[in-house]
């Protein structure tokens, strides 16, 4: 990777710090997304500002521990205040969150301006983080010695954060799962959903604050929401969702970091902030998941939808041919007539006709199409379903005669032989439908 100027001893640590922080946030984010509290990460990461400022004003120094404690406390307070305003004021959750975090942020800004004489609390550091400085940490000796290896402090802290969050998830997996999906059930089963809520909030606040210094505000918010949301589109199992969110978080960290080095060079510009690039990379991965997800992806649903539409058109074609045959047994129906009657596109219609010929349902004759005896049997079933449904809707469900055709048109495609037998029974075996057309006999096959 020399071509983009990758340097393992510095970029490796930056990547490790980014990936670990991303994983720590993504682990908890799964439950925020499931509980529909995705915006809480955003709220907390803004609201911790007065905590940081207060810690600075009290201790008078930019030391990490008091700032961490102050920020974590205010982060937890955000969750508590939000809950209070929601509970006592009957304000809806989003609004109460908005009231709390913007107010705290404003308070923090006022406090920071007061402190600005004494020290420079750089706002841009809060936004972008300083992942870049991780590389410098090795040089200036801001490291912990782990097993003979000099690990930058930021990386060490992020690793501990990941371990704590993972331990919380492993220990309370069942409780978290139940209280996320069904708080009432959790309470009746003897877990306190409230306790789990606040435990989760505490960890969210702690993680936001820990990652704050290295990743900045944007990346924390992105990692709480985007990888879990993408994972949610890829799977229906909670376990897999958590695993995938971790993989996606690591993937965005790597992709974002590489992108921040490689792309601007290609464009001849300067490097962007790494944290911001990681957020953008996570967004790209989310778009990919939304497009190509195996079950809920847009592409799969599009294909599934087309397949269903094609199947229905195939049935409509033979049902139409059958109805034409009723009126005029010798008729061969032309393509243009089929298209204008069934309102179908040119390509789709040809595909469907070819398919039905292949299945032996229809044959070409005299420039048009006719049913084979196999096709006629199948069409009989469809038309029988349609007319039985019309009878049923008119006689049993009391739907007026001019509206039954539409409903029957839809229902006929999802009606099998057994359901037809029941409809027949319910409607007392009619010979004709409400429009006076004969209901075909049940065929021997199908």
């Amino acid at each position, binding site marked *: 990777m020399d071509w983009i100027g990758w340097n393992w001893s510095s970029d490796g640590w930056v990547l490790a710090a980014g990936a670990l922080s991303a994983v720590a946030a993504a682990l908890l984010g799964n439950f925020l997304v499931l509980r*529909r509290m995705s915006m809480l990460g955003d709220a907390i990461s803004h609201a911790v500002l007065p905590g940081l400022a207060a810690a600075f004003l009290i201790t008078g120094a930019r030391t990490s521990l008091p700032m961490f404690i102050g920020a974590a406390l205010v982060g937890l307070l955000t969750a508590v205040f939000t809950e209070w305003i929601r509970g006592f004021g009957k304000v809806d959750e989003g609004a109460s969150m908005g009231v709390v975090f913007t107010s705290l942020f404003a308070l923090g800004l006022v406090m920071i301006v007061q402190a600005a004489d004494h020290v420079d609390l750089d706002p841009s550091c809060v936004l972008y983080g300083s992942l870049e400085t991780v590389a410098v940490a090795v040089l200036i000796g801001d490291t912990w010695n782990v097993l003979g290896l000099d690990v930058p402090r930021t990386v060490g802290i992020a690793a501990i954060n990941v371990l704590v969050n993972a331990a919380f998830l492993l220990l309370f997996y069942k409780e978290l799962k139940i209280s996320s999906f069904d708080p009432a059930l959790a309470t009746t089963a003897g877990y306190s959903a409230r306790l789990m809520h606040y435990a989760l909030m505490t960890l969210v606040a702690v993680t936001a604050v820990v990652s704050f210094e290295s990743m900045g505000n944007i990346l924390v918010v992105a990692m709480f929401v985007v990888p879990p949301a993408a994972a949610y589109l890829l799977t229906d199992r909670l376990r897999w969702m958590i695993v995938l969110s971790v993989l996606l978080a690591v993937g965005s960290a790597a992709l974002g970091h590489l992108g921040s080095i490689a792309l601007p060079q290609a464009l001849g510009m300067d490097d962007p902030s790494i944290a911001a690039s990681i957020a953008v990379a996570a967004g790209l991965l989310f778009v990919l998941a939304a497009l190509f997800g195996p079950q809920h992806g847009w592409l799969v649903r599009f294909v599934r939808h087309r397949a269903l539409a094609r199947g229905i058109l195939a049935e409509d074609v033979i049902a139409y041919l059958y109805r034409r045959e009723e009126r005029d047994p010798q008729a061969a129906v032309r393509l243009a007539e089929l298209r204008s009657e069934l309102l179908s596109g040119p390509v789709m219609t040809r595909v469907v006709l070819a398919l039905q010929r292949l299945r032996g349902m229809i044959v070409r004759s005299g420039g048009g199409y006719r049913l084979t005896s196999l096709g006629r049997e199948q069409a009989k079933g469809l038309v029988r379903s349609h007319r039985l449904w019309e009878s049923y809707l008119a006689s049993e469900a009391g739907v007026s005669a001019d509206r039954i055709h539409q409903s029957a048109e839809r229902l006929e495609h999802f009606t099998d032989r057994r359901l037809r037998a029941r409809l027949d029974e319910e409607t007392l075996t009619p010979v004709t439908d409400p429009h006076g057309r004969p209901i075909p006999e049940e065929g021997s096959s199908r």
Partner: protein
Amino acid sequence: MGAQQDSLAEEAFELPSRNVLRRTLLLQDYNTRVVVAGTTLLGLASGLVGSFTLLRKRALLGDALSHATLPGIAIAFIVATSLGLEGKSLAVLLLGAAISGTLGMAAVLFIRNGTRLKEDAALGIVLSVFFGAGAALLSMVQRMEAGHAAGLESFIYGKAASMTSQDAWIIGVAGGVSLLVAALLYKELQLLCFDEEFAGSRGYPTTLIDLALMALVVVVTIVGLQAVGLILVIALLIIPAAAARFWTENLLRMTLVSAGLGAASGLGGSIASALFAKLPSGAMIVLVATAFFGVSMVFGPARGTLIRWLRRRGLNRRIDRSHLLRGIYECKEGRDASAQPSAASSPVPFADLLAMRSWSQRRLRTALRRTEREGLVQAAGDRGDSWKLTPDGLREAARLVHEHRLWEMYLIAHADVAPGKVDRDADAIEHVLDPAMIAELEELLERRQAVEGVAASPHPIGPGAGASTAAGGA
């Protein structure tokens, strides 16, 4: 936090001189006039728009949209600079902000409608990814030699104090437009907020109205960016509306109150910031709004916590009173079934009353004291250890017991509730009976077994018999 701020105040605040105070409060400086007018108009417009988004449970939409404007600002700056235009001209930047804000809005709608993710996740994704893209672009721009992009970050934190009269005009026009749109679409917006499906079934184009509302949010957000910054404009969209919700149940009044509170916050905040050199105006505007919110939440006459607490206390007192009167009445009835309850208002020991329900001694004594003041009961022995009904009290107690039993019989006869359970169910509902209802019930149930106008209890009465049902009574 408050104490913290006070200690700050001592070391950092200087009280403004009388001259400054007079000049500021009378708006004698042109600059102050512009800023105050601009922020007041902004508060007005955002309060107005915010009340609709709040009712639509979309309070955080402004949050996502305002963050989504950042890449537009950065791109507009890059494009304008590379074309040789003045990159920091407000019109160019706001155009970029509007475009990317609209894209963000579209992305939120797409994620919400096109995937199985819910609204909150859609907002979170759009917010963080768009803002990340904006920040990445800005960080690149800032290192560009020709850029001089230093001022762009004021969009994030806001700089109301440097507002020009042109900015104030832009805000004024935007406010006027949103007022006009809200007035024209008032009925549609109202329907959309309260019953979207009903609006759809009546043939209103709900998606279009929704888009119009979102467009209003984008407009307010963008004009607010320059004044109070990206984060705090969210506050102006949420807080005045949330505060107004405590004052009234009527949408029109709520909208007006919300706009008024927003305007007052803008006014108060910007004046405070003008008076004290070290108070940033955007943050002060929000803190003033928060103060309004706090006051509204406690004292709001429609849904404030104080009024709700008073209402609940009133209801609890009424319930305790009727439980007490019924308790005394039924105690006598239970002790001597043959005796006519009205023959002698014989005293009932305090201990017996206490055993009737699961109420504490203190609560029972308070209820007794209050009822005594009403002249319905009087102490029969020393130190209040036995009590009896006055003639007035007896009449009132007979009415209450009668109502209670009517309900019990109704529940047994028409709702198939087991006799063992009716006491509790009737307890829950009798306190809200009105005379018309009682007449109807009496008509429904023939007044059999009535003793002096009071129907007999369908279940055994007394401390022992009531034990299983007393728990639910309090």
